[in-house]
């Protein structure tokens, strides 16, 4: 059983006033695929490196499978890490790269060969075992880096943006492969990315970080359907959720020519005369009664089109998903209507917290 637990884990870099990771509380279950996501500089890599033992923990504790590893060096943690730039040993062959950790651990030669061959088989690297990293493509190097991790059968896999050096198509392909491989091996995995699509598609659960502070940990579905605050609401989903600060009126909030009903508990919890209303693009459609906008841009994706428009008195552009075959023209004046009033999110305009369920 290898659960991973962060207890108020904190990292302060010397000379910086704000901690890079601030009192992180996180429980990762045995066999779980947890994705750490957030904008650049939010402390994802630092969190992962603390778990790997490459970064000091200034406060709090880290446990791997009930064992307190806070002050233990990396080699006593039984973890394997895949680095963003792969960090393959340039003078070793693929087989030597993959077998290095086993060699250090004093595993017998025959056993190393067997396990390297097995991992190479899984990753389709059998033909490249005698090559040096220099003679491999980016995708192959990425797989060697994965191979180096799985050969060891560690307690935990750590991956820091392992796909960011691949081209878009290969990234999508490899994404599925990694997720499938992890399910098959059942090894607890912590995966860092700044790409919210990767986070949504790969993780059992996703942890969203901002400025070193954990915002929300939940399943991708939950994160998408019930973001706990404005930051998570705006970060997850592409195009991002429309967030409008709208005045409360009788029966709800005013949304153009209509009034959107607001649940009683939201109204009671709202601290002021307005609430922030969150509308996913797929919950907005062109036509009918609603907010009048002038169309700025239309992004046609074939099956769908995203319509970006500006409403009077609102700074942020609104985006709605529309039928890909007959989208409105640029410059047209249209109304955007809300499709499902129950799927509207509400947030406190001051604290940014979610209101209601």
């Amino acid at each position, binding site marked *: 059983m290898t659960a991973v637990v962060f207890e108020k884990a904190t990292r302060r870099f010397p000379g910086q006033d704000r901690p890079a990771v601030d009192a992180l509380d996180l429980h990762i279950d045995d066999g779980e695929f947890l994705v750490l996501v957030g904008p650049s500089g939010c402390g994802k890599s630092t969190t992962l490196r603390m778990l790997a033992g490459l970064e000091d923990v200034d406060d709090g504790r880290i446990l791997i499978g009930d064992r307190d590893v806070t002050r233990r060096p*990396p080699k006593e943690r039984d973890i394997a890490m895949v680095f963003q730039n792969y960090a393959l*040993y340039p003078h070793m062959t693929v087989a030597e790269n993959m077998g290095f950790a086993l060699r*250090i651990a004093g595993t017998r030669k025959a056993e190393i060969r067997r396990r390297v061959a097995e991992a190479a088989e899984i990753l389709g690297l059998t033909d490249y075992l005698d090559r040096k990293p220099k003679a491999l493509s980016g995708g192959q190097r990425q797989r060697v880096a994965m191979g180096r991790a799985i050969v060891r059968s560690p307690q935990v896999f750590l991956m820091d943006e392992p796909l960011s050096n691949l081209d878009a198509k290969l990234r999508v392909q490899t994404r599925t492969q990694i997720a499938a491989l992890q399910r098959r091996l059942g090894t607890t995995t912590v995966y860092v990315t700044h790409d919210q699509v990767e986070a949504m598609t790969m993780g059992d659960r996703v942890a969203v970080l901002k400025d070193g502070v954990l915002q929300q940990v939940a399943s991708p579905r939950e994160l998408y359907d019930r973001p706990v605050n404005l930051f998570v609401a705006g970060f997850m989903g592409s195009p991002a959720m429309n967030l409008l600060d709208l005045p409360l009126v009788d029966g709800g909030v005013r949304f153009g020519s209509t009034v959107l009903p607001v649940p009683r508990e939201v109204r009671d919890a709202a601290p002021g005369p307005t609430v922030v209303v969150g509308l996913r693009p797929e919950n907005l459609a062109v036509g009918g009664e609603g907010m009048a906008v002038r169309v700025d841009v239309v992004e046609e994706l074939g099956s769908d089109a995203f319509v970006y428009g500006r409403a009077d008195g609102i700074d942020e552009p609104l985006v709605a998903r529309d039928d890909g075959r007959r989208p409105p023209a640029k410059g047209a004046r249209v109304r955007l209507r809300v499709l499902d009033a129950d799927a509207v999110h509400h947030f406190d305009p001051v604290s940014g917290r979610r209101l209601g369920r």
Partner: protein
Amino acid sequence: MRTSTRASGASPLMYVTLTLVVLLSIAPLYFMLVMASRANSEILSVPPPLLPGDQLAGNIERVFANEDVQFGRALLNTLLVASVATVAVVLTSALAGFAFAKLRFRGRHGLLVFVVATMMVPVQLGLIPLYMLMTEVGLAGGLASVTLPFLVSGFGVFFMRQYASQAIPDELIEAARVDGASTVRIFWSVVLPALRPAAAVLGLLTFMERWNDFLWPYISLDFNHPTVQVALSRLSGGYYTDQALVMAGTLMGTLPLVVVFILFGRQIVGGIMEGGVKS
């Protein structure tokens, strides 16, 4: 600066210039060979000979036969001294350079400044204290006195540190740590192989410096422990100088360097090629 995209397109002017440079570099070596293969009287004739003669074997034989010079022993001595110093300098510099470049420890900046500062003391200034020191510890006169002071090098440490900090990404070392390697193991298995090109350059420079060192060995060594340069100086001593003999000796004293250069040169060129392509 613009670089030509076509590797094959060097201009005629470039060829002429390079040919000239090659000729100028080879000329002294060539005339060394010419003089070493002639009798002394031929060398002093006017005009001087421009082609090699037939006395080479005889001159070399005379060099090795001279008991005052002990040329054969000098060659072996120098080979020993230069080899030991080279291996030691490369190893210590690689170790210290790695530590300065990649490990965090208290006082590393101050220590590095100290190491660099040792490069600024002129050799001549150190001769007398060094001689007194060697006499005190009873090593003066022997080969140890020209070996021990040169087992570590401030320049070597600095050179290796510079190379290590740009040639070895931190992630490589972290990957090895996660793979369970100790710092010593990381040095042997990951760092040292990566430092090979720089080690080859440093090794070559060190070997040449030790091989060609004259002043300190001349002061320190006794009659029975000559190095090549000291032996050469004895060849030209006396009332009259046999130029043919001196040149034959110089030729013998230079050949080993050429061999070493060929051996290490491959590594250096390999290193340059490797660094040129980003992996």
